[in-house]
């Protein structure tokens, strides 16, 4: 940024101003204690924790399956991805195999979740630079997707859908009936978003070259996901460490070049389009079969077994009363969440409750890098930068 050669201070006082937590741009829960020289941010201290809900402590006091609803509320814009990540971790611990159909279903719903995450992020970014209309259109599109997930899981955003060994229920026919139409609608909204924002100089001015973080710094800060890809590093766990059936699906990893808010916006936009293509491929390839493979240690048997056989009933009681009892050990499983590497680190002591359930929150790193991204920028830049990191409180502060 160009600096004027006027002396910086003519006796002007720097202004200390609290931005957040209750501030429109802070999504309610982050506090930036900033020091301003005129309009320029000269110092920032980030304070978080306004949404700390004791996730880990709750997990340690819950059985394995009770943790799934808690994971819904980590990244509450893409909850199914959290479900999947956690379930994969537990399944790894148990050594369970998930039926192919369940894996495909997870991919489909996971990508729907990813789209809704990116829609919210990009829309909110638009809103924060003043393009309220685009935001509302994007939320409208998100609504279409939520109807789809509701059709499958029975909830709009706190799905509690995956189980150890499969999913709570199968994709219904109505889902497939609705899917293509909804995807088309979403694509139409995205197209409108492109026309409204992508060539609009005002928007480009706001997001271009703000919040730049180089690839090296981004890696230093532990960035993953769209934020890292925007700097040019094509690190996507769906390809780097494939899980589920991503190896059977074709998609491209969008990367940016500069690593500013604009690249992040573009990368997210492109990822949405890629996700739509992934969903279409997965729908074409999804095999017939069961959605859940029962393992007596892991989770409940099928209802027919419970009602029909005494063994089933005993399994049922046991798993509810004691919880799922995995073998002792520790496991780390990461998936590509909406914001990046969403890792679950579980320590099992052989009892029904996780001894330790740690989630590696991707946006934790982003927020920790905020001071570096903000200092030297204007007050007005706080908003698009903050918007572009897609801070999700539940995940950040757990």
């Amino acid at each position, binding site marked *: 940024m160009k600096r004027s050669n006027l002396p910086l201070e003519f006796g002007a006082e720097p202004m200390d101003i609290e931005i957040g937590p209750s501030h429109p741009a802070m999504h309610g829960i982050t506090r930036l204690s900033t020091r301003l020289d005129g309009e320029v941010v000269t110092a920032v201290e980030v304070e978080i924790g306004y949404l700390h809900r004791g996730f880990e402590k709750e997990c340690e006091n819950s059985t394995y399956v009770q943790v799934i609803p808690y994971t819904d509320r980590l990244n509450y814009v893409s909850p199914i991805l959290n479900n999947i990540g956690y379930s994969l971790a537990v399944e790894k611990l148990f050594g369970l195999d998930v039926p192919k159909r369940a894996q495909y279903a997870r991919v489909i719903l996971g990508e729907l979740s990813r789209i809704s995450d990116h829609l919210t992020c990009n829309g909110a970014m638009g809103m924060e630079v003043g393009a309220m209309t685009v935001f509302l259109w994007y939320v409208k599109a998100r609504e279409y997707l939520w109807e789809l997930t509701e059709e499958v899981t029975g909830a709009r955003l706190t799905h509690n859908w995956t189980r150890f060994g499969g999913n709570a229920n199968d994709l219904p026919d109505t889902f497939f009936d609705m899917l293509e139409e909804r995807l088309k609608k979403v694509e139409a909204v995205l197209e409108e978003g492109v026309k409204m924002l992508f*060539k609009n100089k005002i928007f480009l001015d706001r997001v271009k070259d703000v919040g730049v973080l180089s690839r090296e710094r981004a890696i230093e800060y532990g960035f993953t996901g769209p934020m890292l890809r925007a700097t040019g590093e094509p690190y996507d766990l769906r390809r780097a460490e494939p899980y589920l059936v991503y190896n059977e699906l074709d998609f491209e990893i969008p990367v940016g070049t500069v690593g500013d808010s604009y690249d992040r916006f573009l990368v997210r936009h492109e990822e949405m389009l890629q996700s739509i293509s992934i969903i279409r491929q997965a729908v074409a390839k999804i095999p017939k079969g069961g959605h859940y493979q029962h393992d007596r240690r892991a989770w409940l048997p099928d209802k027919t077994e419970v009602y029909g056989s005494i063994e089933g009933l005993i399994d049922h009681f046991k798993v509810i009363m004691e919880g799922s009892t995995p073998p002792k050990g520790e496991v780390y499983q990461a998936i590509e969440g909406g914001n990046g590497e969403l890792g679950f680190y579980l320590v099992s002591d052989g009892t029904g409750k996780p001894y330790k359930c740690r989630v590696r929150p991707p946006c934790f790193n982003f927020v920790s890098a905020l001071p570096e991204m903000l200092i030297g920028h204007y007050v007005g830049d706080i908003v698009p930068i903050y918007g572009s990191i897609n801070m999700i409180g539940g995940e950040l502060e757990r």
Partner: protein
Amino acid sequence: MQTAKKPSVKTVQRQGGFLIDLYLPAIIGGLRITLRHFFRNVITQSDVVTISYPEQKRRISPRWRGRHRLTVREDGFIKCVACYMCETVCPAKCIHIEAGEMPDKSVEKYPVVFDIDELRCVFCGLCVEACPKDAIRMDTGIYSMASTERVTFDYTRNMLMDAHAKTDKTKFPSTPLPLTQEEALPQSTAKLAG
């Protein structure tokens, strides 16, 4: 672990250039879209997606997890056997059960108190999954609860059974279940009901 597939990378296209620097083309382009929406919505309302809620209601998924109900057997007696499964599995610990026995021992146990604090409930549906008797369900289709008093969210056993009575069974057809134990129970308990 699966082997990694070679990722194909796509570099996103940054916009820029003289035409964009002029501001006006994009502004006019944007106005075209908004005006299209505006005129469509003013003249034909064809783009309006709003559901005028209290009057219009949108179809919700048959799987929607709404307020609970306690199912009853064909003879009208509560299906619940107070086994505490749902209370155990509930992550919100919003279910409170006190078991009791019928004087004539016609059923093993039944809930004397079965309260759900629907304000605490997170609608995860684990209680339904955990119930071995199909006694608790969340398919009432009641998706909306709002009140000015906190106490109104405390649902007692009888209120939950009322919800069962009122549930539109056609709208939320119960999933076909195999013959269950209590259906085979002798009809004698019917006399005790009510």
